[in-house]
């Protein structure tokens, strides 16, 4: 008999043997596929957010300069602009005005930004789609905002930013500089932070160093650091994401190990009979290998495909409560699907390979013992 013919015969036998224990094996595949699904969902989500950040934040300011007072951010005087402009290599500097506004009516936090080129004039705002979705009842087209002076500013909503841009704009409220200063009672002559452009991108680190030297109470953040932040923050190989997953993975390893090592009496008897009928030890191991392949491959395909649908079609609904935390505003985003041969192979080696080998070892032990002893045990 040819090699392939033998493999097919053993596979046929393995499948019929698996079908004899339908319920048990179906339960195993469901649990296994769920673990693959969880692992793949986390990997897809983290990788996609990372790539999205890299693609979008490429346009972030080259350097942001913050002022610190006793370890906290503080408003930065506009007089710093001239001192920074004097540093060789700095092409432009301007102050930004932005802050957070807590809306007590719905418990949401907005990011309020004063737009220098705001097109609509005073007492008007442009809002992000997340803000629009969660506007308190009865607000309608005018949004009352309580200023830090205690009075209310009635801001007319002129525009809502597109839903496609929610991942960067969901919680934004844009307004004119004058309205911003009035709302937060920020006097003229100070800003929240400064943004810089540098003539030669290779000089960014040098310029950042010179800023700290000239103004020791400031902290520059470069674009490279912003991009590295998202690279590290959503690195699925580190942090709490993996800590959480290790729990699930370990539970599965114990489950698989227990299932694989503790051959049932029926399985032992089956091995004994097969040996008695003249099967070689290698044939029995081959049969168990195919069993591992069938169970793990089925679970792998199911888990990976369902995880992709979950993350990129259903916006990772299962993780929503974990990601949302205490936030009221949560962007309704559609992530850019990311699937690479590297990710698929990582998932494959993390899930399929260990299980397949875990099934082979105990059956090798059972297969090498005397058939009579195996059947009597």
């Amino acid at each position, binding site marked *: 008999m040819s090699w392939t013919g033998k493999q097919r015969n053993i596979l046929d036998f393995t499948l019929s043997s698996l079908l004899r224990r339908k319920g048990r094996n179906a339960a195993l595949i469901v649990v296994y596929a769920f673990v693959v699904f969880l692992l793949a969902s986390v990997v897809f989500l983290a990788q996609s957010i990372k790539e999205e950040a890299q693609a979008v934040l490429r346009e*972030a300011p080259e350097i942001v300069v913050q002022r610190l007072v006793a370890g906290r951010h503080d408003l930065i005087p506009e007089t710093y602009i001239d001192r920074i402009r004097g540093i060789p290599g700095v092409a432009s500097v301007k102050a930004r005005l932005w802050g957070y506004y807590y809306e007590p009516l719905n418990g949401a936090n907005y990011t309020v930004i004063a737009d220098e080129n705001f097109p609509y004039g005073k007492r008007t705002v442009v809002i992000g789609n997340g803000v629009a979705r969660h506007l308190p009842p009865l607000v309608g087209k005018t949004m009352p905002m309580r200023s830090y002076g205690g009075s209310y500013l009635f801001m007319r909503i002129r525009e809502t930013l597109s839903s496609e841009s929610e991942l960067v704009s969901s*919680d934004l409220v844009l307004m004119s500089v004058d309205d911003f200063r009035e709302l937060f009672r920020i006097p003229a002559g100070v800003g929240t932070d400064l943004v810089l452009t540098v003539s030669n991108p290779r000089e960014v680190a040098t310029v950042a160093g010179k800023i700290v030297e000239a103004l020791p109470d400031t902290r520059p953040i470069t674009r490279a650091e912003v991009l590295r932040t998202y690279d590290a923050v959503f690195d699925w190989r580190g942090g709490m994401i993996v800590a959480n997953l290790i729990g699930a993975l370990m539970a599965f390893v114990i489950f698989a190990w227990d299932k694989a090592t503790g051959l049932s009496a029926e399985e032992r008897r089956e091995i004994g009979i097969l040996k008695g009928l003249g099967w070689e030890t290698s044939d029995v191991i081959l049969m168990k290998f195919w069993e591992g392949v069938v169970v793990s491959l089925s679970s792998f395909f199911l888990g990976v495909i369902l995880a992709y649908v979950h993350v990129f079609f259903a916006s990772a609904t299962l993780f929503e409560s974990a990601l949302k*935390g205490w936030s009221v505003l949560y962007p309704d985003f559609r992530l850019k699907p990311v699937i690479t041969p590297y990710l698929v192979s990582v998932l494959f080696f993390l899930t399929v390979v260990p299980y397949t080998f875990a099934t082979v070892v105990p059956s090798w032990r059972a297969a090498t013992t005397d058939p009579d002893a195996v059947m009597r045990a």
Partner: protein
Amino acid sequence: MTLRRGSTAFFLFVTIGLCGLLLLFAHAYWREKADRAAYGEKREIVKALGLTDLCLFTEARYTRHPAAADRFTPFQDHPLSLEHFPSASILLPPPHLSTP
């Protein structure tokens, strides 16, 4: 080809699974092309407003703008305050804050 043999059915299943995986690759490629316009829009907003962060977690300052947060923000709500926002437990600190 007959499906009377279990192995034939299994190989068919594996083929379908592989085709499913290939379809995911094709879908990702197609969506990337289709979403290019939306990328441009997001980049424009980032550039025009000088944004530094994605709007993912709006519950705390340091989770809304992790790139712009400082070392102490998670602990500065009151003396002896411990970091307590749920989303902070799934975010690693930015590398420029964790390296001395």
